[in-house]
């Protein structure tokens, strides 16, 4: 949490314009007019041992077991997806291997009708919020229909995966503005990477969230790399959390491989935001154990040593140790989970593989609410051309992915 020493009045027209003329000024370095600090929290060390007093929920099986189960599910889905990609059955895929503690805790901390605006690496949060596995595969298989979340209790107001980095941050401001304007007890959650914090969109969104004191929680998922660019080359800032100081927003760092810490920070931030306390920034320190995507080769730019060191901090093993120690989890539970997870993944993969290809005209049918007259001819021509082409290439050599 950052703690401004001087709290300027927030009334319109006076903020930051506070009259300095009355300040007596001694000393040679000028008087201090604002002070800030960034704090870091973890509950579980890399062995899953508590390093500080645990919050009550950390011993509540109803909270902790679903988190753990979804972390395992997320990793299993990543494995499957990479396998599908390697065999040409899926497009480029970004694993969240190593980041499960953060991504799942984000999803778990949110309320049903909060709105998630995330990147391609929030699979865990999406799963927790009710996006179906088959939809996630459908999306990465190259079909936009995977973003039309249709599962039971699906988060229909959540934004689709955001690919252009940080461009969803301003959306989150709009979503939160609507919530606040309508006096709804809802919160927008914007998750983005360490690389994303270098973009102006992120900053403009932070600033807007501060100005309007919106119910908006930003989570910086600092996995230390933006493709090949390390955190150190991304910014000279000592922490990424302190980016929030630029917008007058409170911020904190947590151990992102400690799901308890992430969940706790998110819960607090969400309930404060829900109560009208305004925005908050959580920087979760984690690590991307996989390549950036299946199109990347991380060995080009990072050392085997570093990877080895970080593997030891695995959030899943860590949480399992804690759960076992707290008697919330057993070897038998683990075996059951493994089986159930494998079955779910296989079933979803089968469902995905059985999906019919999207009809070509889909590219026109959702462009506008109603197809403009001007486009009707093109749509017809597309349908005809695609049919002719498919008839010709019935052997399917061209689009056989």
């Amino acid at each position, binding site marked *: 949490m950052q703690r401004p020493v001087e709290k300027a009045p927030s009334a319109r027209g006076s903020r930051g314009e506070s009259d300095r003329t009355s300040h007596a000024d001694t000393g040679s370095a000028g008087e201090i007019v604002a002070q800030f600090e960034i704090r870091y929290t973890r509950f579980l060390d890399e062995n899953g041992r508590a390093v500080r007093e645990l919050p009550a929920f950390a011993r509540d099986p109803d909270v902790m077991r679903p988190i753990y189960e979804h972390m395992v599910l997320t990793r299993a889905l990543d494995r499957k997806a990479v396998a599908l990609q390697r065999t040409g059955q899926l497009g480029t895929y970004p694993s969240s291997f190593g980041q499960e503690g953060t991504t799942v805790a984000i999803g778990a901390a949110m309320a049903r009708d909060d*709105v998630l*605006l995330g990147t391609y690496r929030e699979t865990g949060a999406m799963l927790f919020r009710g996006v179906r596995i088959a939809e996630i595969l459908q999306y990465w298989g190259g079909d*936009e*229909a995977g*973003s*039309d*979340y249709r599962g039971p209790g699906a988060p*229909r*107001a959540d*934004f*689709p995966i955001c690919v*252009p980095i940080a*461009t969803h*941050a*301003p*959306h*989150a*401001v*709009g*979503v*939160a*503005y*609507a*919530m606040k*304007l309508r006096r709804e007890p809802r919160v*927008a959650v914007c998750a983005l990477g360490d690389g994303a914090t270098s973009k*102006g*969109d992120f900053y*403009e*969104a932070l*600033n*807007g969230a501060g*100005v309007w004191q919106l119910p908006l929680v930003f989570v910086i998922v600092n996995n230390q790399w933006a493709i090949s660019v390390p955190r150190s080359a991304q910014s000279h800032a000592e922490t990424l959390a302190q980016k929030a100081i630029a917008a007058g927003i409170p911020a904190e760092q947590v151990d992102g491989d400690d799901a308890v810490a992430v969940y706790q920070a998110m819960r607090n931030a969400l309930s404060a935001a829900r109560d009208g306390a305004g925005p908050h920034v959580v920087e979760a320190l984690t690590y991307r154990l996989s390549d950036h995507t299946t199109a990347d080769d991380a060995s080009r730019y990072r050392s085997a040593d570093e990877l080895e060191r970080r593997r030891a901090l695995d959030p899943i093993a860590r949480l399992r140790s804690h759960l076992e120690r707290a008697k919330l989890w057993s070897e038998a539970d683990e075996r059951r989970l493994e089986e159930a997870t494998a079955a779910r993944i296989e079933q979803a993969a089968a469902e995905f593989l059985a999906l019919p290809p999207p009809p070509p005209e*889909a*590219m026109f049918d*959702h*462009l*506008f*609410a109603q197809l*403009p*007259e*001007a*486009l009707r001819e093109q749509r017809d021509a597309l349908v005809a051309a695609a049919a002719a082409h498919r008839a010709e290439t019935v052997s399917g050599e061209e689009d056989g992915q």
Partner: protein
Amino acid sequence: MSGAAAAAGAADQGRHSTLSEITLVEAVNAALAHELEADPSVLVLGEDVGVNGGVFRATAGLYERFGPERVVDTPLAETLIAGMSIGLAAQGMRPVAEIQFMGFIYPAVDQLLNHASRLRNRTRGRLSCPMVLRAPCGAGIHAPEHHSESTESLFAHIPGLRVVVPSSPARAYGLLLAAIRDPDPVVFLEPTRIYRLVKENVRDDGTALPLDVCFVLRDGGDVTLVTWGAATRETLEAAERLAQDGVEAEVIDVATLAPLDMQTILESVEKTGRCVIVHEAARNVGVGAEIAARIADEGLMSLLAPIKRVTGWDTVVPYAKLEHDYMPRPEAIVAAVRETMEAA
């Protein structure tokens, strides 16, 4: 149009009044006020649109009437303005955002192209983006550098966006209502040069004009003049001069630049056999090029003469001293028409 908004528009028909002799910018103001009144999901946002009422006064009085939550002064951040509008729209609001001048719209391009125009498509209709982005455009008011842009073709090229340019107070009123009620994103460009140049009576009865269709401003059988925005003035003036010499020009105001109503244009060209396209934007890859290209495909056989374009030059819009040398003049339009008349 959302059901609610349509109903509100209809219910409103009873208490309409006629705004007498209002300017284009006043018509914009009236349309905004009408929709803020009729539809609680409408909100207006942008730089200086609240307390100050907009640098062109397009939002004057709205802050006082609808309050700071619905008439929102934003920080100086165009990416934020466009981006938050998308978030608002996805949540069922109908944001009408203002960019202070078209020269400052470019930080919004990413949001318009990568998100606003494709949110519906990307989610197969689960989310949508009923937002309007208004921006004053064009040269001719001796404004500072970067204040005189007509870069509508950048936006017209983006699939999933509507681009609308009004050319009179009544069309500004009716088209802006339609834009706000439209379920998809609309870029609404208001030519500053005609913000206060013409006045006319406008019925403030909530009646929208149709989008996606051209308006025929003048009938004629000899040549088709296609134009939009501020250039409609010079085009109509040219048509008058031509009429004095017995040449009857049909003048078409395209109004919605994308999607493009080519039918009206092609029908006219079929009748006249000649076409001159007039716009203030630079010629190269302007919207006029698209119109000419479509005629050169679908209407070629009815052409009696080359298709001419009278446009801004392919250079940066010059600063005040030379801006009038940049814009199409009536005499240039007349000359182009004469060329096409001689060609046959």
